[in-house]
């Protein structure tokens, strides 16, 4: 099994940390993982993205131009990465701020109202964990238990008091993800 994922949105949306938790979850179930971010000052307030790969085998290129899954959190990223999902692949997006929803007919499309839900819960910072929950609902490539372990591993101890809220968010994500189109 190899899963090649791009997560893309604005800097500050927790794109990189979502990828990190996913990668750590893979390690918890003995997989090979890679996490390749966009970096540099061009990220100041601009878009941020990270390529995460989980695999049972040695990972070849950490940098890709085609993905099994695209998790899209803003319009620029939709424009850039919708065309790069492999046919039959998955596109998961948060409709908040999306003015042009995905148009491809040959991929599976899901949406998750994560930012809305996060502000309903009064926890805007864990918006990314809701999205993560949605993703593992659609593609249970990592076990929920391992995600929880990964979460703990990737947070420095001084943030461990936030784990319960994060868990809650992931579980909420499992519930609220909706399918838009299946192929």
């Amino acid at each position: 099994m190899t899963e090649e994922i791009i997560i893309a949105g604005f800097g500050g949306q927790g794109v990189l940390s979502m990828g990190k938790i996913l990668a750590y979850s893979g390690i918890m179930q003995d997989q090979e993982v890679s996490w390749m971010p966009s970096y540099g000052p061009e990220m100041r307030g601009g878009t941020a993205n990270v390529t995460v790969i989980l695999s049972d085998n040695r990972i070849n290129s950490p940098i890709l131009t085609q993905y099994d899954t695209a998790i899209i959190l803003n319009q620029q990223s939709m424009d850039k990465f919708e065309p790069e999902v492999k046919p039959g692949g998955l596109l998961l997006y948060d409709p908040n701020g999306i003015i042009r929803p995905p148009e491809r007919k040959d991929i599976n499309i899901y949406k998750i109202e994560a930012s809305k839900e996060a502000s309903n819960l009064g926890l805007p910072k864990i918006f990314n964990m809701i999205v993560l929950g949605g993703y593992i609902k659609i593609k249970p490539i990592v076990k929920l238990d391992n995600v929880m372990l990964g979460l703990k591993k990737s947070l420095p101890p001084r943030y461990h008091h936030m784990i319960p809220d994060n868990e809650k968010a992931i579980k909420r994500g499992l519930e609220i993800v909706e399918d838009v189109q299946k192929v």
Partner: protein
Amino acid sequence: MAKELRLMKGNEAVAEAAIRAGCDGYFGYPITPQSEVMEYLMAEKPHERTGMVVLQAESELASINMVYGGACCGKKVMTSSSSPGISLMQEGISYLAGAELPCLVVNVVRGGPGLGTIQPSQSDYFQATKGGGHGDYKLITLAPSSVQEMYDFVKVAFNLAFKYQNPAMILSDGAIGQMMEKVVLEDQIPRLTETEIIKKCPWATTGKTPDRERNIITSLDLDPARQERHNLKLQEKYKKITENEVRYETIDCEDAEYIFVAYGTSARICLKALQLAKEKGIKVGLFRPITLFPFPVNQIKEMAGKIKGILSIEMSAGQMIEDIKLAVEGKIKVEHYGKMGGIIPSPNEVLEALEQKIIGG
């Protein structure tokens, strides 16, 4: 005992490896894309973990000369930087090589020339493998292509540096520095004691005791004959390194008709291209040099007899290709494909280049 696993950036792996390899001192100056090396070290408080000294210098010029001072004392010392900073260090590196001092320099390469870009590149190949500063000298150059290798090569490089009393370089790039992968950590190697250093490095300036002559460390010799003898000795050493320390990896090379030669990030891209090629029925393998000096000349030469062509994949205008061509001695076609300016070629582009430049060409 269970292996200790961690998800780390390449830059962090270098830092953790340095602490665990028993490194005595790190001296550096911030520059993207490798500032995490020093940031990680500062956060880890290695002065409490092992007594390792970590210092932010006022420049790369100062950093490399701090390394020089530490190396003279037989200490395991290192610095890291990225291309513009490594250029500034060339004077010091030449002095280290001239004085035959062991040390580790990590270059997390970004695109040049000049201030260039902060994105990954492999355009410092010539600088790393052909000397870089003035005078006839070589650096032992290791090219990691994964975060695990960033970690492992710190220890390997220190060992080689001390074995040959020569500076060693890890030539990485922004992609490997910035990406995270799973790393298996090794146990802590204790730092050497003063007595152990005196025994291991009798040449070091550790303080003249009555039982030995003074130790002077210099790269200066005004007597041409002696200076030439010194140069010949250096050349002899580089020959020995060439004979004994070549490292490389081959993948799917056994029945290949064509070969990609690539190191570092480019090798990772080629791995994916191999997969795509297989789907198309193209028989291509990957030859990955791990030491860039010494370059696997004989291995490439031998391989050239069995294949139809080589495509050198580099994130540069084509630098390593010159060494491949020298090895191949004109027997088969050797072409370059690459990107510059911080752009990483895609596996599809690499495969297309093979089809156009080598198979079809």
